[in-house]
């Protein structure tokens, strides 16, 4: 069965650089969520989109922005990267909100 696809899987950036993470939801899923997971921590919700509109916003820094496109894929743009942004970034998708979310493999971002 098709799963959530994230790219890239690994990314190394320097401080103050920008990064773009991509997420392709499971086919027919219209809702996308972004989570950030630091070492030894549980995933923290960043932002979500339903039918290309932002549906919820969590602890996402102002330096980050995201959008969902007409084909339902989503991109998380991160600017002025800081060392503390190093983490695993998960994308999840679901059919509508409040249904089970299926997670992608994650993008491991390392900021040097």
């Amino acid at each position: 069965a098709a799963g959530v696809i994230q790219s890239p899987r690994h990314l190394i950036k320097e401080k103050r650089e920008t990064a773009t993470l991509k997420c392709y939801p499971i086919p027919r899923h219209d809702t996308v969520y972004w989570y950030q997971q630091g070492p030894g921590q549980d995933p923290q919700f960043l932002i979500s989109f339903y039918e290309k509109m932002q549906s919820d916003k969590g602890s996402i820094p102002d330096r980050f922005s995201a959008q969902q496109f007409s084909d339902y894929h989503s991109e998380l743009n991160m600017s002025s990267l800081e060392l503390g942004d190093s983490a695993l970034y998960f994308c999840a998708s679901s059919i509508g909100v409040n249904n089970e979310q299926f997670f992608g493999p994650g993008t491991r971002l390392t900021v040097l």
Partner: protein
Amino acid sequence: EDKVVQSPLSLVVHEGDTVTLNCSYEVTNFRSLLWYKQEKKAPTFLFMLTSSGIEKKSGRLSSILDKKELFSILNITATQTGDSAVYLCAVPPIYNQGGKLIFGQGTELSVKP
């Protein structure tokens, strides 16, 4: 403030043992509770519980929800080394219809041969 608390935080057992993982929650307008298994990669969906007292079962794993006492348990019988993982409990607060998940801290299960 909505929160999800899991216990124990870590657990070490031997193959063949049965384990019970706990998840308690305080969430406005509860709708559902989800269990995930995370093995050094993305969380893998296990169960979604919405009704009290109805057990969901998948192989050696089962889970049940108590909406009166605000908790859920995840049982794993005849544990195997492949069950070693962090088990996450999550609840979506729906006050703003966004569907985000609030996760507990996770229970790190280690199954020894």
